[in-house]
């Protein structure tokens, strides 16, 4: 897959392998040595595994020959004359060469590589490991080695130094295969299963986390080594032990039965390239280690060493529930240190704008006869914006565009509206106005509403973008240049005069994309509109002329989502190529590329302070990226399906995420913790939105319902004591029913967008889909 060519970018954001003392990388060189010593097959005692720095000097040709020789030897050994001859003829190899090979030191186990890698850091190490892993497992893998010639060379570097005194063919092969007999895999696995089942209750839950990654890697190894039938029976025997939320991955795995298939398979590559992260208490880990050593089960041990990252913590083992809440992503849980970075989640200081006391306002006050009530409110609002939030980033951390006059006017409007805002709460639920798209045969794929709720845009599967005005004010475009020159520029109503009355209509259709439009976003000033599509582009449209201004190319693959920064100018997009990109409207190339997700980036959201970006992905994780330096500062795991919606709370402290599993999870950004789980939806949650004051969280789903949740209640009884913060263990209440304030069902309209107007009226929208 060409998309993966961009994978090295991951290096940029990959948390360093071993900054933490307790983490296993530190453990691995020693442990690896132990493991090998215990394993007679790999003949580790011959030479201590040396750190093998990548040596890309060797040419690919010898590698192939190496492999070939090993295979030939194996064949001879197994009395497979015919095969040997055939192969030899095929390779035009001479007998003596084989003989020579038997004596030569060239054949070697790559047993040293895992240890070596841990020492190497940075991109090279990662790359080498990727490739080493790939090459290692290709037993007679001429084809695979050929596919990654440079990488294979790295592998060769190590074995040459490895075991000089081991001309034994089985040893040679074991280096490729890691461990001999495929028939034993089932035994190993059930042995481990038995061990875990017999473990003490408190450890069992933790240890059972091992099931899935081990299962996957053992299966993949079997497939790599072309033991198709063994792999199949292994899969059949144990796949039902796996947790149900891994089903999607298992389905992908199940279709993989041939080595050739593995080349292009992305899911498979994810497993090979990224370590599966497990969080296990020290006691449980010791137990496991002891068991594996006793049993001399170095097969499993190898996998644990090579493909698993065990994040060990001190203290009580976690309960099954605690574990279940956090696992489920493609690559296990987030490492603890991944969420340690400081995040400035506070809001930026609002620029001070004089709010002119409007006549209309005065009248309103007089009519109501409560002038007192309003005045303090306004003061409080003013003071709030004046005070600097301690958690806020420096004002100019990210350069933001200057406020224009029109922006200021809009802000004033916003404040005025805010005064009329309904104060929501469990006692006062919002009214919901549902905008149904009728006759959307072509499929509605994206919706957005302007902040002032005056326009709605719909992206359709037929490549069109349609903009509706939902106020009596119709959409008009600017007059042509020739006509504009005739206008008296001095007149007061020049802004009105430039508009062409003849073009006034409620609906404008924007043509330009050549594939389904998956995302759309209005700029905060309502002058621009972004849309992204299956055709790999993001387009910027002018809402003055209703024409396309720019097509941003870069993703090359379908772009799933895009969003304007709350301050305009910047925008973010994410797509099938697994990266999210930060753009500025006046640059045709991205400013930042956020890489690290292991699958499609399905949704993107700006933090209200515009300094961070949250992305949700099909790898079932949510990541938070720092716009300033492109680092990944938070990884949230816990969803059991691809993420399809994100929403920041207005105060910037919390993030809500919704996924295909129908659950909404709430996260404390500052502490990097899951703080709530809202269960109730029965299908994908496609829309999430906090009310303007953050009291209510609204969620909209494919199950045709809008649900309202009490956000205040979720967040008020947060236990953010030191222990929780340090360990990341959370105890969530079983039921979220007491948080559910209301369920509103539409007839047959999936809810795909939600929007709170400035006065806290909830707008929902979706396309009517006749059953």
């Amino acid at each position, binding site marked *: 897959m060409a998309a993966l060519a961009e994978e090295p970018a991951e290096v940029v954001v990959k948390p360093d392998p071993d900054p933490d003392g307790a983490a296993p990388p530190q453990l691995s060189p020693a442990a690896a040595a132990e493991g090998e010593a215990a394993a007679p097959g790999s003949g580790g005692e011959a030479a201590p595994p040396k750190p093998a720095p990548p040596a890309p000097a060797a040419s690919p040709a010898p590698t192939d020959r190496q492999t070939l020789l090993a295979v030939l030897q194996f064949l001879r050994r197994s009395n497979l004359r015919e095969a040997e001859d055939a192969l030899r003829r095929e390779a035009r190899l001479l007998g003596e060469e084989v003989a020579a090979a038997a004596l030569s030191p060239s054949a070697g186990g790559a047993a040293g590589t895992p240890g070596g890698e841990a020492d190497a850091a940075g991109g090279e190490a990662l790359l080498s490991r990727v490739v080493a892993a790939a090459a290692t497992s290709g037993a007679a893998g001429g084809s695979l080695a050929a596919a990654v010639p440079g990488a294979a060379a790295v592998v060769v570097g190590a074995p040459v130094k490895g075991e000089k005194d081991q001309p034994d063919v089985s040893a040679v092969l074991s280096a490729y295969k890691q461990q001999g007999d495929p028939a034993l895999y089932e035994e190993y696995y059930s042995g481990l299963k038995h061990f875990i089942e017999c473990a003490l209750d408190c450890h069992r839950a933790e240890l059972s986390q091992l099931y899935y990654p081990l299962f996957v890697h053992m299966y993949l190894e079997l497939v790599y080594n072309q033991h198709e039938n063994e792999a199949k029976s292994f*899969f*059949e025997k144990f796949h039902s032990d796996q947790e149900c939320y891994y089903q999607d991955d298992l389905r992908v795995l199940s279709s993989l039965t041939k080595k050739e298939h593995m080349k292009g398979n992305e899911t498979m590559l994810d497993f090979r390239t990224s370590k599966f992260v497990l969080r296990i208490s020290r006691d449980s880990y010791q137990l496991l280690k002891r068991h594996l050593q006793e049993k001399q089960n170095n097969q499993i041990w190898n996998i644990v060493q090579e493909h698993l990252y065990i994040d060990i913590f001190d203290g009580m083992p976690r309960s099954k529930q605690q574990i279940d809440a956090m696992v489920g992503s493609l690559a296990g849980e987030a490492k603890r240190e991944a969420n340690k970075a400081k995040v400035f989640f506070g809001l930026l200081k609002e620029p001070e704008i004089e709010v002119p006391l409007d006549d209309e306002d005065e009248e309103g006050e007089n009519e109501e006869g409560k002038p007192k009530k309003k005045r303090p409110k306004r003061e409080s609002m003013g003071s709030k914006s004046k005070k600097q939030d301690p958690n806020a980033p420096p004002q100019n951390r990210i350069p933001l565009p200057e406020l224009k006059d029109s922006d200021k006017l809009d802000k004033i409007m916003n404040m005025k509206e805010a005064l009329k805002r309904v104060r929501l709460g469990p006692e006062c639920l919002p*009214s919901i106005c549902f905008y149904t798209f009728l006759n959307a*045969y072509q499929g509605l794929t994206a919706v957005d509403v302007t902040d002032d709720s005056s326009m709605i845009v719909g992206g359709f599967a037929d490549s069109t973008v349609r903009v509706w005005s939902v106020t009596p004010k119709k959409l008009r475009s600017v007059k042509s240049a020739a006509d504009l020159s005739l206008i008296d520029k001095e007149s007061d109503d020049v802004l009105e005069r430039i508009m062409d009355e003849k073009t006034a209509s409620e609906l404008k259709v924007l043509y330009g994309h050549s594939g389904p439009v998956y995302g759309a976003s209005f700029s905060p000033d309502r002058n621009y509109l972004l849309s992204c599509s299956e055709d790999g582009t993001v387009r910027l449209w002018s809402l003055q002329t209703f024409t396309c201004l720019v097509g941003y190319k870069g993703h090359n*693959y379908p772009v799933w989502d895009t969003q304007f920064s709350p301050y305009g100018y910047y925008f973010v997009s994410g797509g099938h190529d697994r990266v999210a990109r930060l753009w500025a409207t006046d640059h045709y190339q991205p400013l930042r590329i956020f890489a690290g997700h292991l699958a499609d980036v399905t949704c993107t959201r700006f933090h209200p302070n515009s300094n961070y970006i949250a992305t949700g992905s099909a790898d079932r994780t949510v990541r938070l990226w720092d716009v300033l330096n492109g680092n990944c500062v938070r990884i949230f795991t816990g969803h059991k399906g691809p993420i399809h919606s994100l929403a920041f709370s207005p105060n910037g402290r919390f993030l809500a995420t919704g996924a295909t599993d129908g659950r909404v999870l709430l996260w404390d950004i500052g502490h990097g913790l899951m703080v709530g789980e809202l269960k109730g939806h029965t299908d994908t949650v496609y829309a999430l939105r906090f009310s303007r004051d953050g009291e209510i969280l609204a969620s909209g789903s494919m199950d045709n319902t809008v649900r309202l949740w009490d956000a205040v209640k979720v967040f008020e009884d947060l236990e953010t004591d030191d222990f929780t913060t340090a360990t990341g263990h959370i105890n969530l209440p079983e039921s979220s029913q007491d948080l559910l304030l209301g369920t509103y069902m539409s007839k047959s309209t*999936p809810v795909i967008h939600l929007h709170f107007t400035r006065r806290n009226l909830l707008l929902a929208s979706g396309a009517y889909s006749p059953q």
Partner: protein
Amino acid sequence: MAEEKKLKLSHTLLPAESMKVMAEATGIAQVPEETCQLLADEVSYRIKEIAQDALKFMHMGKRRKLTTGDVDSALKLKNVEPLYGFHAQEFIPFRYASGGGRELYFYEEKEVDLSDIINTPLPRVPLDVCLKAHWLSIDGTQPAIPENPPPAPKEQQKAEATEPLKSTKPGQEENGALKGKGQNAATPDGKGKEKKAPLLEGAPLKLKPRSIHELSVEQQLYYKEITEACVGSCEAKRAEALQSIATDPGLYQMLPRFSTFISEGVRVNVVQNNLALLIYLMRMVKALMDNPTLYLEKYLHELIPAVMTCIVSRQLCLRPDVDNHWALRDFAARLIAQICKNFSTTTNNIQSRITKTFTKSWVDEKTPWTTRYGSIAGLAELGHDVIKTLILPRLQVEGERVRSIMEGPVVSNIDKIGADHVQSLLLVSWGGVAAGGLCIGVAVTEGGSYVCPQLGGGLPPAALVAPGGQAGTDSRACRSQVITFSTSPVGTATSPVTTTVASLQPVVKLVSTAQTAPSATVTGNVQKYIVVSLPPPGEGSKGGPPAQLSPSAPPGLALPSLAPPTSTTIKQEPSDSPQTPASTPTPFGKANGAQGGVAESPQPSQ
């Protein structure tokens, strides 16, 4: 379950044969077996891969259904040219064929004549996308408007009615909340009252939360308009109102009002003998029953008495001799049957209670003819089994009674009309069940025109019912069946005249005068049939001697008289039917489905 599915999935492979076929289709002959196998593996894998990618597009497209477009997109992702020609179809029907032990699924590609396409007028331009706004919720309450789903779905209403305590269980809280909100529609103080519900829930006694029935102003207006239109004089308005009752989803909260309205209305108008209003009210009941969003169980205590009144009341109109109150009785009887069908359970025993009521009033000697008619109509509507167990045994008694009225000296006009109606009703209901396989000779003399049901062979009714009992279905099913009347004894077997039951009644009369006992061959989906009693040889013609079929004929008449034709027909399909319980020689008919079947005596059906 899901596990099993997946298991299956992991093994799904295209058969190697398909590869061969495809290779041949593209002109490559002689593909080795191994190659086919390899290809099959590879292709299966690729297809799965593409399907998984396509699924991704479906999710992103926010749909539930995978479309061909998704597959195209997935192919595009892999730099494969998409499949052309599968676009417009919403659903691609795969045809199935098998032969020679092979199964084949294919997509039918019809040859398209271009000139046809060119010449056909353009299809209508589809409507453009448009935006429509409605209130999903107003201050946390979902308004009952057509755009919204009914506030309480029928299932929930049902659950509530049948299991009152269930809705207060914590698991169902959300439903409860939804409903609670739906009920106190837009009233400011509704909320306060609703707040009490949780208190009650917490109590050890699980009390059903008090439901509040306050109607909003709009609902009150609606109620007023609808009820006025329903009983008003303008037929067009009434039709609209009834239509509204039958279709509007938001009537749940008004149901108690409607129910009371109907119940009171019937009470008053029965006393005043206002036939028209009673009819209107019954039509309202019908409309309520028709509304798919309403579950009436909770209001049956009001509706059933009202409907029953309209069936069995002694007098429903001012001039019973002229007005057609019979129609109202029939209509109401159908309603009650519908109610029984929908709501009768083993706990509420609606049907048995209703049946009991009908039977009691029917059995009573002093029951007036109007009530008698209503009772029979009510029973007749309740289905086959009821007719067989309750009406048929009394047929003779009733026949006597009718005759005594018809022939008796002191006949009031009203009684006579009543008896007449009862007679025709009995004929109809008998016709329905005749198919059930009872040997009954019914003869109506031309002159006297009275009914004389005779129970065949003097067998106890139970025995007669037994064979047919298995076959019983509702009377409507019978209507569609065919009854064959034979015109001549020999012809019975070979050339039956078939006619549908709908025209049964006149035919019966005709036959009876022709001196042939009706031989009804009914072929229906469930049962086989037939009753024939065809004694007299010779061409049946009008005006023949009625002697044999006179009421005084021995009870055994019907069956023995069948003997002659029997012998001919048995030969036709000897193996087809077992002997009748009465073990009388009987003609055999064709089994199920054969319209031209021969008449015969009861046959146990399968």
